């Protein structure tokens, strides 16, 4: 770099910093004046306990937990949804999260026969069916294979399913919380299949869990060989029991039900099995009485998490509007946000990693003048698919398909800042 060029850059930097200062000055002058007779804040003027006394030592928390002031940031369930808590679901507190990684202890749960508690030394993975050599692996065997790390969202096919007929649950935790996004460590399914040697006529695999539901699903071989992982870790540590410890399937972009937990067996075959979870369940009944099956992919979807019914607006003026977007078909290309119920849209700012079949985080830095708002977000993915409205979806599918509701969500923000789940027309 020439001396002149670097001098130019220095000059420009100086100019920018001066401009920045000017901006700061302007902002300072717009701060509210100190009110007449204002009292100093005792939290500042008086010495607080935590400033005076010793806190806990490093030996108090061998496995750390969140602050007690975050005690409401927890998974919640909706008891009337299911007949038993062992075959049920709870919800990730999306309204209280930021970034894109879901803390392991907050990842929503969906079980069909409760949480299987398995000593990893006692766990076995079998591969059988149309293979050259049926095999049994221990966890140690799997830990000796080449590893991969991938960040992916897992969304339950029934996420937002209670909203097909209209606005029903008041909070994005309940309307959209059957989703989480973590980093998985594991091995490619392909690595395991190569060990067994697939016969040429293999078209489908069946994945089966070791839990009391014997959860099983058919998986097309093309997907299995493409990007499916068999994972033993999430967010850097072993899978949580409720997420399939010690071993689970990771099927990027596809409905959560296929991500078999406590994975004990993979069978190779030439046809799908028509298991209960792909016939009675996870089939989508349409208005003409016929049903779609094998609707594996989770389409592009988004939700504004702040403001939302559990996270109302507290201030006029500066606010951060934020949310998640995701697509099972690829990456999120763009997220648009409206505050007038879809009349006008602006493109939000995506910040943080934009990864294949992963959540992205979007923001709109918003000046709110206190008017009523109808907030929506609309995701577009790398295939050009644009998240539809609920009305558009209902036109194609009716209201009884249960699964795959990726329709645009509306939050009505009242002048008080209180926010509620509404349907608009």
């Amino acid at each position: 770099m020439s001396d002149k060029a670097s001098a130019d850059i220095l000059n420009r930097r100086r100019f920018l910093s001066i401009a920045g200062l000017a901006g700061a000055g302007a902002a300072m002058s717009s701060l509210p004046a100190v009110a007449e007779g204002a009292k100093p804040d005792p939290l500042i003027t008086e010495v607080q306990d935590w400033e005076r006394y010793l806190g806990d030592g490093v030996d108090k928390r061998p496995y750390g937990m969140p602050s007690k002031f975050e005690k409401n940031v927890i998974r919640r369930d909706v008891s009337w949804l299911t007949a038993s808590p062992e075959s049920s679901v709870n919800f990730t507190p999306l309204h209280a999260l930021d970034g894109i990684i879901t803390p392991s202890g907050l990842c929503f749960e969906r079980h069909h026969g409760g949480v299987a508690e398995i000593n990893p030394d006692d766990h076995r993975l079998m591969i059988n069916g149309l293979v050259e050599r049926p095999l049994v692996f221990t966890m140690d065997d799997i830990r000796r294979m080449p590893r991969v790390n991938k960040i992916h969202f897992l969304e339950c096919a029934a996420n937002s399913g209670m909203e097909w007929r209209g606005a029903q649950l008041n909070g994005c935790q309940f309307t959209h919380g059957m989703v989480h996004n973590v980093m998985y460590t594991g091995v490619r399914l392909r690595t395991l299949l190569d060990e067994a040697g697939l016969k040429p006529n293999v078209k489908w695999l069946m994945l089966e869990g070791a839990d009391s539901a014997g959860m099983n699903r058919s998986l097309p071989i093309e997907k299995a060989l493409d990007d499916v992982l068999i994972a033993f870790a999430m967010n850097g540590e072993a899978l949580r029991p409720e997420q399939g410890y010690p071993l689970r399937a990771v099927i990027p972009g596809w409905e959560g039900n296929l991500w078999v937990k406590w994975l004990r067996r993979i069978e190779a075959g030439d046809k799908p099995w028509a298991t209960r979870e792909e016939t009675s369940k996870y089939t989508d009944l349409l208005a003409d009485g016929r049903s779609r099956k094998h609707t594996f992919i989770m389409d592009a979807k988004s939700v504004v998490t702040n403001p939302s019914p559990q996270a109302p607006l507290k201030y006029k003026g500066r606010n951060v509007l934020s949310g998640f977007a995701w697509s099972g078909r690829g990456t999120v290309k763009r997220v648009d946000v409206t505050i007038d119920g879809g009349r006008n849209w602006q493109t939000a700012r995506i910040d943080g990693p934009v990864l294949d079949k992963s959540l992205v985080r979007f923001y709109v830095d918003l000046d709110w003048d206190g008017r009523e708002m109808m907030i929506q977000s609309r995701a577009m993915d790398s295939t050009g698919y644009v998240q539809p409205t609920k009305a558009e979806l209902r036109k194609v599918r009716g209201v009884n398909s249960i699964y795959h509701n990726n329709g645009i969500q509306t939050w009505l923000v009242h002048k008080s800042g209180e926010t509620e789940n509404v349907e608009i027309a």
Partner: protein
Amino acid sequence: MSRLPKLLVLAALGGLSLTAFSLPASAQQAASSSATAHPKKLGLGRVALPEEIKAWDTDVRPDGLGLPVGKGTVKEGDALFQERCASCHGEFGEGAGRWPVLAGGQGSLKADRPDKTIGSFWPDLSTVFDYIRRAMPFGNAQSLTDDEAYALTAYLLSLNDIVKDENFELNNKNFTSIKMPNASAFYDDDREVAEKQFWEKDPCMKDCRDAPKVVGRAMAIDVTPDSKEGPKVE
């Protein structure tokens, strides 16, 4: 601890020494090469024994693949059902409380509130047999014999008017001759065709619609758990 035959241990060790001398990169290649390209094996795992496969591989396919030899009548199934199943599913499969309904609802799939049961909705009988043997009774899975599973499946066929005779015997020979009422009403995911309008080049950004009106409110239904307070954490 290990009950491996000696031969297998040797084979596994052979595999280990092979991979130990190869570079990590080649292991990566082996992992990512196509299944048809005869990748080098890592030599991990051991051969599954026939008894082990038999213990775990109990699934049954619609074409009958996997059906065990066995039999059971509607009458036998009725007795078993009252003893093992009716407390949740009701005497006639009508469902007790909020537990699943197993019978009825035929012809209701186009209704505003469809009733999806084995008889009205399920496409394949194999699923009934397989799921009962795999996961029922709820809380005591894998406790039924093959003959009991045949008998219960037969009883469910009679509850759904698919067979009429209480002496009907379902067995591994006649199993695939049973046709389910809703068998032909399923088709593969067609979203890329049926919903191709959702792929838009330039979605509207300005003056897209008239002023919207609120037509439904979750708060009016009021079924959300109280979200102001989490449960007590001691």
